[in-house]
């Protein structure tokens, strides 16, 4: 996480594009607030879930906890545990005011809520708000009804604007560069964690603010993906990664596997199976498709070849997931009937274990278009092989 901000004059004007985006967001949220009878939306963001803070402020704070309070009328107020974040919030100019959040004594939050005197408060990430803050909120507005608003924000963020898509396309370029760095470094004898170090270095040089990355190496004994260990690569290993850089707040993922040396028959068959599943998922995407339908299309390929059991939770998690200001938005899984509207973005990745070659990852992020989908990355979908290692 890197924040590099130069101070700007107080009240610095937003560009026309930024102002339009801000109005769009406030409009979406306030329409939903009116529907749900909310006087205030309060977005809470611990360090690992700051998507809603970014949505309201266009800043990813460095502090360990942050908040944004958006009343039904008027400017939003941002809070952070880290003083330098307040400079960042005000310099960016998306909120009217920024205040310190002291978890040991969150009195300033109480002051703001008391002034607003809300009757009904919706809290995004209500489920993560710590006791000390929740008790402050309830004490500051003792008569207010406090309800979860996580879904309200998730829904608002689902459809991406052109402003957002432009940023996600920049993430897509960095995704491709990250994968190139990954393949470039693979060689027998290299420990897994050194792969991650090289990929992170390349991504950060390109301006990525963060990256989520899982990895595994080996042959058909590999059953899942985790942070890296100190295992040394061997010739013939398949090395898999979910690589998810974040640019300007927006995450985008690429899933690929590469063989150290030349692929064997099992690895090639595995790639063919997974590639067919990705293509099946892509083929059903259109406005109004559900997450369930995309997952079924992918899983049917596995079922067709007798590998259906490997689509269960014993071997895998999801068939993909939404992307945006959070890297893991709506899950693409059978049983999730969430509609994926035009301009929603998600990755199709039928990642799972099979006996063919162990855990295999392959997937592309897509945008739902008016008549299908746009694949957002340019990286070739193939089983990569390195050099001429025997």
């Amino acid at each position, binding site marked *: 996480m890197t924040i590099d901000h130069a101070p700007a004059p107080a009240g610095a004007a937003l560009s026309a594009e930024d102002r339009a985006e801000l109005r769009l967001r406030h409009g979406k949220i306030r329409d939903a607030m009116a529907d749900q009878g909310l006087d205030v939306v309060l977005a809470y963001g611990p360090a*690992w879930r700051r998507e809603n803070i970014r949505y309201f402020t266009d800043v990813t704070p460095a502090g360990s906890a942050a908040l944004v309070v958006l009343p039904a009328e008027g400017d939003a107020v941002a809070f952070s545990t880290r*003083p330098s974040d307040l400079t960042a919030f005000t310099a960016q100019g998306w909120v009217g005011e920024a205040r310190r959040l002291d978890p*040991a004594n969150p009195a300033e939050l109480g002051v703001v809520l008391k002034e607003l005197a809300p009757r009904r408060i919706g809290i995004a990430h209500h489920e993560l708000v710590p*006791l000390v803050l929740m008790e402050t909120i309830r004490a500051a507005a003792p008569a207010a009804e406090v309800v979860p608003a996580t879904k309200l924000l998730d829904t608002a963020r689902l459809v991406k604007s052109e402003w957002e898509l432009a940023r996600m396309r920049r993430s897509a370029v960095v995704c491709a560069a990250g994968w190139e760095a990954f393949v470039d470094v693979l060689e027998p004898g290299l420990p897994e*964690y050194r792969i991650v170090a090289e990929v992170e*270095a390349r991504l950060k040089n390109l301006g990525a603010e963060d990256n989520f990355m899982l990895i595994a190496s080996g042959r058909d004994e590999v059953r899942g993906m*985790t*942070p890296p260990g100190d295992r040394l690569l061997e010739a013939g290993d398949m090395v898999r990664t979910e690589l998810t850089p974040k640019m300007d707040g927006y995450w985008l993922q690429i899933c690929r596997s590469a063989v150290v040396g030349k692929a064997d028959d099992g690895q090639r068959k595995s790639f063919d199976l997974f590639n067919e599943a990705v293509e099946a998922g892509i083929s059903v995407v259109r406005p109004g498709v559900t997450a369930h339908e995309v997952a079924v299309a992918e899983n049917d390929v596995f079922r067709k070849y007798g590998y259906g059991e490997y689509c269960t939770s014993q071997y895998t998690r999801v068939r993909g997931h939404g992307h945006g200001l959070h890297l893991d938005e709506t899950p693409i899984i059978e049983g999730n009937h969430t509609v994926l509207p035009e301009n929603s973005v998600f990755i199709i990745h039928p990642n799972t*274990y099979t006996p063919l070659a162990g855990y295999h990852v392959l997937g592309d992020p897509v945008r739902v278009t008016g008549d299908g989908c746009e694949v957002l990355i340019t990286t070739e979908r193939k089983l990569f092989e390195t050099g001429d290692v025997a």
Partner: protein
Amino acid sequence: MKRGLHVLDPAETPDQEWQERVATLQRTMAAQGIDVALVYGDVSRSDDLAYLTNLCLYWNEGVLAIPADGSVTFLTKLSLRVQNWMRASSKVTEFSGGKNFAELVAKYLVGRKNGTLGLVDAALWPADVAGEIVATVPGWEVRRLDGLVREQRLVPSATETELLRAAGRILDDAAAKATVEGSTAGSRVETVERALRGGGFLDLYPSSLSTSDGVTSFGVTGQYRMHWVHASRVLGDGVGWPGVLQDALSAAISAARTGATVGSLAEAAAPALAKLPDGAEAEVRWVNQADLSTGGEFRAQDPAAVLADGEAGAVSVEVAFADGGNAAVAETVRVTEGEPEHLTGAQR
């Protein structure tokens, strides 16, 4: 995010020390009348869990259940296939998986005689999770506890100190390389990512601050195994107010001796800080390495707190200038009765 090297190495931390960590907590629980303690962690604040088990929460949340007697159980929303990895890379042998922590806690308590259930560091638990647990375990007294595990972590053991020294050396070298003349924002982060993750760090957080007169300070907080170190340095030749900041930091570090108060660090730095430009607001902080994952932001700075022998932490001087710029300098040290041991910094 925790995407660097995660290992369980008995040569670094022997079995006996892992057992003693849990046993020490169990003795504290017994003294407070706690039958079962629960420790909550998420991907951004999971060091208590790691300290007791070497578990790495690289994603999502988890709860560790510690009985007054016997082994710990990890309650997790993660799937079985990830549990296998966790079993191989931690000291935990008992796992319980499900979608809801309250249900997992209720299931864990089945067959146990009703007693007192303690929530460790209760103020920082998600209120919803705490409330659901209370509602799901009628017959149990649920008590809010302070940071019992954190308190054990405040003064590192000899093995932990060795790991901190290793961490400090790697981070110090990386910070020095990253802040050479001519470095750019991208190259600085690139350098520390390659050096720290390549050196075996699990997690790291680089950060840049800048001022209206074009001065950049670059800081890195990193986690090596379960231990954290931090350094922040102002780029450039140190002329003008950056030199004042460095003088203030040196004075604060020199004051960090066994028995000194946190407030005395600020007092030591005050003469230098008085030379800062008008309107600048400076803050001198001590953050024990046990709190560095959250920058110490979940703990109030207590000027009366006394530094213990062997305690390790970051001394920082952070400045907000009147025109909105920010700067920070910091190094990680180990408190001794004499001059502090520099874990990072030029005097190391």
